[in-house]
């Protein structure tokens, strides 16, 4: 398991299978191409810490190394706003005055424009999908944001379905382990239950006799405890 997969498993809840990761990467890349962005990131909601964690960054491997596993508070920034409003948000740099000639802050390496789109399943927030551009003067339009928002919806559904499948598979595996652990005694108990089930379905009038018989066996085997019926 490589480092990326470990982070995916830890923060995304996606099992480290390349199939899901590849589909998500494909989706983000497609979204980035549609809105002409250079980088896209998938942040997942960590409910316990009320943060959004970078689970995947596409477009720049240096950014991916730097950002993976980092978290941003849910109550801050453009991603936080997208999460709070459940709306696609578009961000741009801050300038000193209204003519927008002189930037107020930053070292020149920060994104020029950002889209933050909530990943929703119903009204449940799964995370936020971001797209960024570093092209000087470029701004994302409302139409581009709306389109990227659609990719975020699909990404949210994919993450949610993957989590569901992982939970189902995990529960199924646990049930199989439990059945094996029951051994011979468990199988005999299962036989008795199934026998009573058949009796109930096919000869319900015999149930009273069966109950009396079971009570007699119980009294014989456990004389100190007495009958329960």
């Amino acid at each position, binding site marked *: 398991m490589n480092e990326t997969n470990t982070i995916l498993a830890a923060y995304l809840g996606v099992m480290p299978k390349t199939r899901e990761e590849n589909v998500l990467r494909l989706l983000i890349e497609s979204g980035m191409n549609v809105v002409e962005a250079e980088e896209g990131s998938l942040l997942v909601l960590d409910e316990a810490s009320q943060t959004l964690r970078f689970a995947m960054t596409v477009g720049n491997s240096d950014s991916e190394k730097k950002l993976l596993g980092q978290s941003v508070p849910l109550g801050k920034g453009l991603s936080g706003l997208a999460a709070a409003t459940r709306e696609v948000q578009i961000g741009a740099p801050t300038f000193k005055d209204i003519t927008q000639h002189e930037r107020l802050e930053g070292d020149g390496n920060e994104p020029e424009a950002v889209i933050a789109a909530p990943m929703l399943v119903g009204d449940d927030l799964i995370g936020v999908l971001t797209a960024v551009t570093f092209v000087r003067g470029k701004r994302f339009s*409302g139409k581009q944001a709306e389109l990227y928002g659609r990719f975020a919806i699909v990404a949210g559904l994919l993450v949610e379905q993957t989590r569901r499948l992982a939970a189902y598979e995990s529960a199924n595996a646990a049930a199989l382990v439990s059945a094996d652990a029951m051994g011979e005694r468990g199988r005999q108990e299962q036989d008795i239950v199934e026998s009573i089930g058949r009796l109930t379905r096919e000869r319900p009038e015999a149930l009273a006799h069966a109950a009396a018989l079971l009570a007699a066996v119980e009294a014989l085997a456990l004389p100190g405890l007495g009958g329960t019926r």
Partner: protein
Amino acid sequence: MIPTWPFSVLGEAPHVLACRDLPPIEVLVLDSGVDATHPALAGRVAAAYHIEIENDRPRVVEISPNTNNDVFGHGTAVAGVVCGLAPNARIVDVRVLGANGVGSGPALLEGLRFAVENRKSKIVNMSLAAKVSKDTVLGLCETAYYANQIIVASKRNNAFFGGIGFPAEFSNCISVDTESFPTQYAFKYQQDSIIEFEAHGEEVVVPAPGGGYTTKTGTSFATPAVAGICALLVGAYPELRPFELKTLLRAWSVNPPPQGAR
């Protein structure tokens, strides 16, 4: 076909009214808070509140109107658009986003209730969509309508998922979508749409919290343009009822301001 009215019936255009000395009109901004210390909003914020959630119950808390109450920058941008268009607008800042770190349906609902039942500001700007308690929101909007209050509400940016959003879809509100226009005083009436108006919401230069200016795009920033225009019209013609105001907006939508009007 939208009829055109002669200018004598319409009175003065919004961009002309912006140059008049009009009486102040309260515009209540339900949002992420407003940075009242920003130079573009200096002296324009009349009151500020935020909604606290205590033991799962929301309550309105009044705070100083001279502080930076904005947690995301969204509300400052919205208030900046209103004040930029309507010199007579006085902002009432009600922060409903960011309480406990996230947006909260109950906080938004409490903010709207406060706007309608307590503060009773003439204009309420909602660049947000509610996601809960549709019937309650509808009831509050009805109360506002009959009390001659004007609620201006945004269509959701991602309306393809989860509907247009309310209260924008209610007929007792003025609903706004985004479009690109040459000036913020220009807007368009949509004849066959639940969302009645389109206003300028593309690459709008707005104040940013902490000072400075940034660019915003979306229905959130088209909506306060209409709220600002409403503040001008109501300032000039205070007797306007909500349906008359809508009629006037519809009429002005086909009489766009001349080139050069901001």
